[in-house]
């Protein structure tokens, strides 16, 4: 058998029943309220939503979070109470207690079903209480987990100021250059001007996707090395610092689940989307930068050496996973990028489960995945959209997979059956973007393998009595 025989011609896409476990998209409030420091997230839903948030967020709930439930009661469902009055009462209370710069309403399944017109109520209430109200319908009827952030950012995209609307020049500077002024912190004005010339003269570029501040700085600096200036970031640290977005700006996404935001930026704000693989793993980061460079007509420099150096640093982890197989059950839409990176690391991947596959927004990433499979001489994975967890577990048994990346509902039962698992949600909360964080991804991926290596001689890998019928 030659190497080429092992390679199917193209990626194989399938769609199953959608009976899979994932987090409700309202979970996005947990990281977004921390990211956008002057925001308040109000989730308009039922006890079920509240219970999920409270349990999923664990300890965070005790830190006086800037989010709350507007818990719907029977009177709200049967329209005995007036939605507008009720929301006004709660938002006034929030304004009084927390005085946020923006209140984000998260519409849920229940508000969808009872057809509460949040988009209609918001502008009225906004003018009455004088706080911007952004409406995002992050519900389980339409979306999965990280797509919640997508709905919020798509709604925020409408709130980004236009250059012409920013009257004060100084204010414009401050807004547009929130990131650069952060990086230039403590430098004299002349120095800043001098530094400006380090950048190539390219069209304005705005990044979208919520990342922890250190990662924002890392990626911004990475582009700065190429002479590319990031004009702003959606979302910014504060709602009042949302970037200027004018017609003709370039935008680039940092996460694979932001297709609505991308669409909104293209259609409503007339931006040009740079379709690139995502900066996850050193291969992804390099491809991301190269694509941005090529679109902005900048000659990339030193990337090959930079990538090689990162890979060299990963060697101890690569030894552990090389030749092993990984199975993604699918729940957070990071799966394609992670699988592409892990295949580059020398793993094989029979299946990539994913809640939703936007072949246009992820186009470059999918091509990159294909190319990676060819480069590494491994079979193309099957991409399963809306997977069926029950069927997947059968396939995991069949394939005798070395590592399953899955949600917590399945992790312990699989471990008890001698199958290594990694909890997928950790990838959403860990810092995984850019060259710097490649090691963190592998730290996560190899942890179960390292742990189980140290246990393997103890003879207790299968810990269920009768092999369950599942």
């Amino acid at each position, binding site marked *: 058998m030659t190497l080429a025989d092992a390679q199917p011609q193209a990626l194989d896409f399938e769609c199953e029943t959608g009976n899979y476990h994932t987090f*409700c*998209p309202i979970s996005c409030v947990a990281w977004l309220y921390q990211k956008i420091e002057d925001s308040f997230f109000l989730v308009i839903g039922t006890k079920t939503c509240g219970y999920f948030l409270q349990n999923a967020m664990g300890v965070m709930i005790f830190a006086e979070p800037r989010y709350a439930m507007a818990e719907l009661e029977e009177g709200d469902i049967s329209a005995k109470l007036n939605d507008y009055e009720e929301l006004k009462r709660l938002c006034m209370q929030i304004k009084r207690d927390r005085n946020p710069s923006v209140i984000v309403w998260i519409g849920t399944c229940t508000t969808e079903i009872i057809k509460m017109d949040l988009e209609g109520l918001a502008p009225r209430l906004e003018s009455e209480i004088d706080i911007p109200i952004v409406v995002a319908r992050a519900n389980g009827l339409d979306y999965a987990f990280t797509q919640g952030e997508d709905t919020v950012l798509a709604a925020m995209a409408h709130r980004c100021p236009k250059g012409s609307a920013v009257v004060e020049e100084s204010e414009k500077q401050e807004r547009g250059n929130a990131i650069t002024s952060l990086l230039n912190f403590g430098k004299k004005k002349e120095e800043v001007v001098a530094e400006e010339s380090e950048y190539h003269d390219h069209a304005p570029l705005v990044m979208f996707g919520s990342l922890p501040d250190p990662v924002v700085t890392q990626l911004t600096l990475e582009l700065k090395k190429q002479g590319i200036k990031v004009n702003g970031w959606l979302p910014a640290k504060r709602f009042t610092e949302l970037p200027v977005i004018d017609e003709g700006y370039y935008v680039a996404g940092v996460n694979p689940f932001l297709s609505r935001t991308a669409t909104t930026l293209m259609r409503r704000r007339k931006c040009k989307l740079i379709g690139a693989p995502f900066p996850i793993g050193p291969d992804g980061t390099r491809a991301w930068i190269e694509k941005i460079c090529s679109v902005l007509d900048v000659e990339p420099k030193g990337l090959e050496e930079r990538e090689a150096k990162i890979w060299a640093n990963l060697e101890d982890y690569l030894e552990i996973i090389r030749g092993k197989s990984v199975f993604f059950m699918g729940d957070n839409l990071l799966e394609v990028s992670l699988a592409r990176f892990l295949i580059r690391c020398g793993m094989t991947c029979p299946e990539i489960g994913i809640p939703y596959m936007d072949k246009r927004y992820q186009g470059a990433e999918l091509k990159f995945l294909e190319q990676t499979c060819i480069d590494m001489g491994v079979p193309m994975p099957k991409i399963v959209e809306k997977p069926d967890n029950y069927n997947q577990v059968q396939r995991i048994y069949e394939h005798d997979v070395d590592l399953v990346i899955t949600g917590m509902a399945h992790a*312990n039962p699989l471990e008890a059956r001698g199958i290594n698992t990694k909890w997928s949600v950790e990838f959403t909360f860990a810092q995984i973007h850019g060259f710097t964080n490649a090691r963190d991804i592998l730290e996560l991926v190899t942890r179960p393998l390292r742990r189980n290596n140290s246990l393997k001689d103890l003879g207790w890998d299968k810990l269920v009595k009768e092999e369950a019928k599942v």
Partner: protein
Amino acid sequence: MKLAYWMYAGPAHIGTLRVASSFKNVHGIMHAPLGDDYFNVMRSMLERERNFTPVTASVVDRHVLARGSQEKVVDNITRKDEEENPDLIVLTPTCTSSILQEDLENFVERASLSTQGDVLLADVNHYRVNELQAADRTLDQIVQFYIQKARKNGDLLEEKTAKPSVNIIGVSTLGFHNQHDCTELKRLMADLGIEVNEVIPEGASVHNLKRLPQAWFNLIPYREIGHMSAHYLEKEFGMPFVDITPMGVVETARCIRKIQEVLNAQGADVNYEEYIENQTLHVSQAAWFSRSIDCQNLTGKKAVVYGDNTHAAAMTKILAREMGIHVVWAGTYCKYDQEWFRKEVSEYCDEVLINEDHGAIGDAIARVEPSAIFGTQMERHVGKRLNIPCGVIAAPIHIQDFPIGYKPFLGYEGTNQVADLVYNSFTLGMEDHLLEIFGGHDTKEVITKGISADSDLGWSADGQAELNKIPGFVRGKVKRNTEKFARERNITEITAEVLYAAKEAVGA
């Protein structure tokens, strides 16, 4: 609409699923949108469950919204029936799906025509009952269903067992220390010469429910789950039940005496007095502990108690009656059953607090400044903030409240565990004295910890210095009492003199 950050009892379907998944070979199907199957995560993580949680969702998505579930629910039920051959499938709506007002009863009927197992629709109103009420109701529903089924099939076993026997009703998955309690109760029954007929729902098979009437009586260890079933069995079969929670030395004895009475009424002729005395005096350490000089140091110390009905009531009685601790207030979030709680604890605490709002509970703790809190995980966090120790006695709970080691709260071993919990929660007696003598081991600057204790008063240098000598764990209290004292007298600067005047006046 209600602004809510935290809830003590979960939504109704959680209760239904707790009961359904406690049984062996029963599968729960939720009629729910994507992401509502969070129950599986909780069970898998908190209980470290090795098996897949037998709960799946029949996903309500945009299509269902537009056209109704149509065949989807029926297909999902029959599919699960084929895949896992459960004895029973319980279909449960969620808050969201119950607004759709689909005829789920009809789906259940249709599905049950083609399934091997039985199919039931959980009969709970998601806007009127909480997790605990729903669990009680679902258990009752399943019991009734199988009793009636057995009766129809003519294989209901009504003849009493030869030896005295008991059904233990209400032990369930995700219940606070339920597994350990169950083991302890079984031991207690064995000690009393009582056979355990059935334990439901945890680990039970629905096929065995027809054997329930064989027991001489039912034991309902928890107030929240099992009462409806007990009442049903009493009505149908004249089965007596004992619903005294055997938590604490006195209550355990009371529970055993009640069992004795119930058995003797059926001609058993048992006398447990000697057993109770022997256990109390020589086996359990709790009675001796309350007599020991360690426990003397706890006399009159202030505590507050908050939790579900069962644990908060029992804990209040243990603290007040068995340890001489001053329970300033005792509270519950089981609002729907508040009369019972009031009746149980009124004589053992100064004040009864019925409230589901964690903010109000936190404020009530800050106001009282007890030496220890006994509450849920939420109160533990309030305690952390106020620097007051907290023993966790009730759900909502975290993974650390599902210990691997044997830690029952019920029965005689339970009394030992509770004694340890109480003792460890208060600052240890001798340490307490030493801290007072040597001015504490913590000489940090005072920071205001209270929720609403922002001060407009000035502390003079010598006042501050005196305050710093007061041990850390009471300093906040002294500070606030002194400020209150000063404010009442329009004193704007607190000196050492004012501090001591306040101490004399209000016992700060």
